[in-house]
């Protein structure tokens, strides 16, 4: 008859199997903990990544848009909501004259349509390669050179046509490169130089879309991005721009980032607190469960001692049981968190209204390892008191108490 040796591990597994309800409860407690640890850590890192990316992406100290369009530009930057608005190109020249301004560059926004004429409804950003200091350094990381006339650079979320083109206003444009995910407006935007933007405007007009009304001047732009000289206060320069240029809104990038950052910090603090409270709660619940269980099993442990088990072996049996339950809970919890967090990352980012960028595989693996270690440790740590207590008990008295 083939039988496995009755090692500590084997005995612990038998004990767990023969008490399915208690075992399931232990596993569920650890699974909830592991789910929270892993899920919330990935969430926090993704939000921080998104925030860092956005900070880098802004690239300018100030953004100037037509009066009343402040929320539109924030919407474009944070949620990639396509929009367009225009003011005179002369604004850029006026801003350049303000004291403290080091560099200015204009951008032109266009939105494609959710119709048969276009591959998708996306935000189109035209930039001036001569003056740009925001888009090109970013694109250069992926593409490595300037965009030619008639070419597009597509964000990571944009689905390309099979022939690596995108159709806008019934014209196909080759996509020179597709950017890596950034969790900002870049992901759902298409970038072109100003010459290509002009041909896009003509194509739009051909399908009946007049983005620029007759009342809007020639050479219209959507925004002016401003870099200020070192030593100048962004708030003061913004005030000066407002004083010198009419009908505009000035957004101080730092203020916007700080606003989001404050919102993010309070969210992260809340998540950390929740994870810490859950860890302590799980340890307390497991500690209580093991204390009750070990008390109930006094006679069983006394029998082990009678048969010659050392005190160390008794501790080993209790710890092994709690460890196995923790391992099962840890694996179930992290797997469930993965199933929830990764496939729904876009949805989570949208719901939070914050830039959300998942970490790289190495970071995910590190977080997974740490979450599993903390989950695996919680059971043995919670049961160590009960294990030590039972191993130190007088066998004869335990046997009598257990009767």
């Amino acid at each position, binding site marked *: *008859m083939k*039988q496995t040796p009755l*090692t500590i591990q084997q005995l612990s597994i038998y004990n767990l199997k023969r*008490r399915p309800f208690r075992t399931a409860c232990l596993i569920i407690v650890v699974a909830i903990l592991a789910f929270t640890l892993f899920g919330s850590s990935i969430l926090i890192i993704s939000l921080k990544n998104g925030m860092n990316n956005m900070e880098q992406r802004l690239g300018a100290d100030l953004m100037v848009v037509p009066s009343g369009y402040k929320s539109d530009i924030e919407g474009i930057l944070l949620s990639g909501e396509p929009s367009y608005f225009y003011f005179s190109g002369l604004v850029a020249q006026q801003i350049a004259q303000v004291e403290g301004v080091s560099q200015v560059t204009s951008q032109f926004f266009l939105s494609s349509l959710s119709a048969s004429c276009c591959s998708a409804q996306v935000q189109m950003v035209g930039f001036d390669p001569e003056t740009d200091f925001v888009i090109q350094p970013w694109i250069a990381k992926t593409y490595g050179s300037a965009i030619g006339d008639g070419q597009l650079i597509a964000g990571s979320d944009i689905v390309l046509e099979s022939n690596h083109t995108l159709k806008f206003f019934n014209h196909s444009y080759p996509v020179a490169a597709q950017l890596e995910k950034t969790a900002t407006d870049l992901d759902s935007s298409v970038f072109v130089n100003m010459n290509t933007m002009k041909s896009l405007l003509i194509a739009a007009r051909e399908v009946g879309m007049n983005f620029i009304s007759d009342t809007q001047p020639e050479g219209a732009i959507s925004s002016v991005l401003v870099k200020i000289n070192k030593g100048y206060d962004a708030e003061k320069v913004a005030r000066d721009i407002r004083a010198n240029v009419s009908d505009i809104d000035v957004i101080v990038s730092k203020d916007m980032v700080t606003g989001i950052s404050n919102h993010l910090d309070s969210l992260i603090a809340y998540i950390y607190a929740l994870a810490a409270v859950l860890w302590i709660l799980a340890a307390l619940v497991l500690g209580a469960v093991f204390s009750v269980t070990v008390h109930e099993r006094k006679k069983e442990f006394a029998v082990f001692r*009678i*048969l*010659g088990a050392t005190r160390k072996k008794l501790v080993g049996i209790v710890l092994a049981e709690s460890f196995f339950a923790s391992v099962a809970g840890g694996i179930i919890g992290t797997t469930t968190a993965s199933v929830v967090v990764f496939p729904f990352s876009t949805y989570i980012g949208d719901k939070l209204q914050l830039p959300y960028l998942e970490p790289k595989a190495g970071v995910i693996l590190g977080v997974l390892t740490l979450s599993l270690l903390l989950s695996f440790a919680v059971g043995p740590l919670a049961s160590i008191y009960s294990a030590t207590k039972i191993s130190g008990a007088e066998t004869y008295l335990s046997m009598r108490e257990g009767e």
Partner: protein
Amino acid sequence: MLLEVKDLVKEYKRGDTSFPAVNNANLSVSHNDFVSVIGRSGSGKSTLLNLIAGLLKPTSGSIEIEGRDILSLNDEYASFYRNSKIGYVPQGQSVLANLTVLDNVRLPFYFFKREGDAVKKALSLLEQVGIPHLAQSYPKQLSGGELRRVSIARALINDPTILIGDEPTGDLDAQTTAEIMKLFSQFPSKRTAVLMVTHELDTVDYGNRIFKMDSGILAEQIK
């Protein structure tokens, strides 16, 4: 001499006053002895057995098994001694509910490193105690007498030199008691001494020596 107990004292405290549960007990047991210790409930019989098995620490005195002072051993050695030299059949039901009968019997075999086939040995012991057909059953499916046979088989798995029984027939009917006692009486001839406490006078006939315990004082009776 297999077992030598000298001037053994175990005191318990009740409130501020202490009283001896075992009072200067002396006992010698050889390999082919079947020793019965009788006495009323609370006379200190079980305490004496537990002291001898190393499950309780005495207040004073000495206990030697095969010339070795078991009180001086650390937990590792004391446990090894209990595991390999002493077969203990506790009072009441002591079979582990989570394990099958076979696993219960072979369990003590694995507490320390040993050569041999534990399964084969356990099955042979179940045969000896008359319940080979119950090897794969769980304790809840067994009667009181069958459970006691499992305890005896388990106590014998490591070929102990002394089998200690704490009222092994306490909760059994007359017929099962007789069967169990018959089983116990076979061991001294195989050089496994039996030390058993009981309050059933019928069972003392199976032994060759009788001790009486009264208020912690142990005294040999002439059979």
